């Protein structure tokens, strides 16, 4: 995985994406200058805590932010379509994005109960998207819906087709969401915390299913999660967000082996699961990142993580450090690694 992939263009590139919301108390920059890319058939994980801008990033890319939010969006998001055209997701007209969304771009959400229509059978819901995007007639669309339920391993699919969301368990509903997302054979799936509401044994089922579908269809996945255990096993590349900015980007193994940004280091060190196997030498206290995320209305003048950072220096509070290359497809936003990077390059 450390060897660079043969120059295949990324399916989606995100360049300098910023999303701000005007509020009564001033402009809130939820996402600031975020850049990353997703290769065909690969999974990029977007990691961060609540308020880090994970979901706003995905909603901005899918153009799903409500009009009433008056979001101010800037940046570019070139996406390679199935036909080989490159389109900017942020610049497309409403008509065009609607043609892509639910078709080549699909999304699954955290709470399957609130994302499915409670008064329409699940078969109808899947068939609707196939009819719309593929132009199939009712019977053909329903047959396709049944094939999708089979694909996501829902038992007795012919009967389930005519059931309503409330008749299914949480795990089954998430399978239906995935069937719905997969119905038009998307090339990019955005999964926003898809297993957070599920129990661990069900989470394992859904993750294995998503992996299988990715291997079979070659789709790319943008996986949004706060669960580092899931990231470790299901992502190829990781983007760590803090207060709306990318603080570190790296392939999964190097990231877990040697995190460069103090926030990523802290995030990995404070996991109780990391202590496993330490035996009698296990520390009595967990490492904890002190304090809390500062309010987006009054961000610190320099590095957003500076008030909580154990390695903070005077210059950290003066200006936001730049995101710099620190190695093969690795980047970090910290004055300390920046210095190291320059030294190594010299």
């Amino acid at each position, binding site marked *: 995985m450390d060897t660079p992939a043969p120059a295949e263009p990324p399916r989606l590139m995100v360049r300098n994406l910023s999303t701000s919301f005007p509020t009564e108390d001033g402009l809130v920059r939820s996402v600031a200058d975020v850049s990353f890319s997703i290769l065909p058939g690969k999974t990029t994980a977007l990691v961060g*805590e*609540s308020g880090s801008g994970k979901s706003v990033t995905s909603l901005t890319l899918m153009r799903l932010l409500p009009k009433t939010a008056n979001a101010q969006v800037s940046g570019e998001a070139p996406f390679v379509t199935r036909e080989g055209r490159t389109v900017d997701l942020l610049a497309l007209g409403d008509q065009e994005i609607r043609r892509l969304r639910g078709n080549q771009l699909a999304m699954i959400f955290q709470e399957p109960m609130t994302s499915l229509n409670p008064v329409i059978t699940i078969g109808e819901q899947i068939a609707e998207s196939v009819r719309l995007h593929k132009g199939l007639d009712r019977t053909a669309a329903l047959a396709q819906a049944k094939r999708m339920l089979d694909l996501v391993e829902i038992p007795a699919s012919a009967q389930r087709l005519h059931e309503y969301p409330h008749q299914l*368990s*949480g*795990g*089954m509903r998430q399978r239906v969401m995935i069937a719905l997302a997969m119905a038009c054979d998307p090339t990019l799936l955005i999964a926003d915390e898809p297993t957070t509401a599920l*129990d*661990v*044994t*069900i*989470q*394992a*089922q859904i*993750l*294995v299913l998503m992996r299988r579908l990715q291997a079979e269809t070659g789709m790319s996945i943008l996986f949004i999660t*706060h*669960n*580092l*255990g*899931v*990231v*470790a*096993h299901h992502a190829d590349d990781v983007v760590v967000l803090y207060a709306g900015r990318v603080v570190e980007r790296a392939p*999964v*193994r190097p990231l*877990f082996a040697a995190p460069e940004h103090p926030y990523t280091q*802290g*995030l*990995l060190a*404070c*996991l*109780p*699961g*990391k*202590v*496993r196997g330490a035996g009698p030498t296990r520390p*009595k*206290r*967990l*490492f*904890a*990142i*002190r304090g*809390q995320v500062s309010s987006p209305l009054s961000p610190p003048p320099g590095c957003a993580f500076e008030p909580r950072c154990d390695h903070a220096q005077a210059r950290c509070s003066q200006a936001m450090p730049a995101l710099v290359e620190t190695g093969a497809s690795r980047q970090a936003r910290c004055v300390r690694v920046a210095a190291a990077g320059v030294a190594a390059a010299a």
Partner: protein
Amino acid sequence: MQVAALPEVDVPLIEVRHVKRYFGTKDKPVRAVDDVSFAIRRGETLGLVGESGCGKSTIGRTVLRLLECTAGQVLYRGEDIGALPAERLRKLRSKLQIIFQDPYASLNPKMRISAILGEALSTHGLAKGPGERERRIAELLQTVGLPPEHASRFPHEFSGGQRQRIGIARALAVEPEFIVADEPLSALDVSIQAQVINLLADLRERLSLTMLFISHDLDVVEYLCDRVVVLYLGRVMEVAPTAELFERPLHPYTQALLAASPKPDPLIQSIAVPLKGDIPSPMAPPSGCVFRTRCPHAIDACAQTLPALDEVSPGRFSACIRKDLLITAAP
């Protein structure tokens, strides 16, 4: 366990005996908790783990008699709390406290922090007089790592982690001996979780608290608990000291649960085959062993008999009739 015959010192602080809690109607009961027994020794932290619907929270509440048992007993220092008259139960409540999961729902939004903590104090007749009361509130806030000036604030002025600290302060206000912590971390972000875990560990040591720690997060349970009770569909599957349980889980369900929880390290291989199917409804649990419908080792006999919770080795209990698997699993 012949508790009655033992001298007072050896009586567990909390003992749960054959507790059942059914909801719904008599002819169609929802068996949330079905014949659960365990004991918590003084100073011990017992973990209660399982997936949603396994009865963890219901047990937590019946232990404090916030819910009555349908059958069975909960003993505090050998005394049945289910039989206590209201007046004595109220006195006892200062010894038995709970920390809730949702720090947003468990604090009254219209009360200042001083009133929330002060109410607990005055209900139990602690900290008489305003000066004493204020001093105690300041002390409690300091104990949980909040500045005492925050006493005059309202809950909405705090973050999730800070609110959970206030929830902990409220539980500690009445100087309890025993605390039920019902998923106290699941609403918190990872970096804040670690702060609260450390706080709980410190307080437990400093105030020699006994704890029932309810969680679905196995990593946290492994870190914080001395012994673990594994539940599935209202029944106990396995009981073991924490280190041994994570080292060598005996029950097929525990094995599946541990295998399904992803470790934050890409170099540790994750499992290839997850458990099949969904958790059955507690309104119609499977006959025999409740786990048999999803168990990879189920045989015909599993549907016939309810497996007893047998002591497999000293201190280790497992409810599974496939004793043959134990031999192959042995190192």
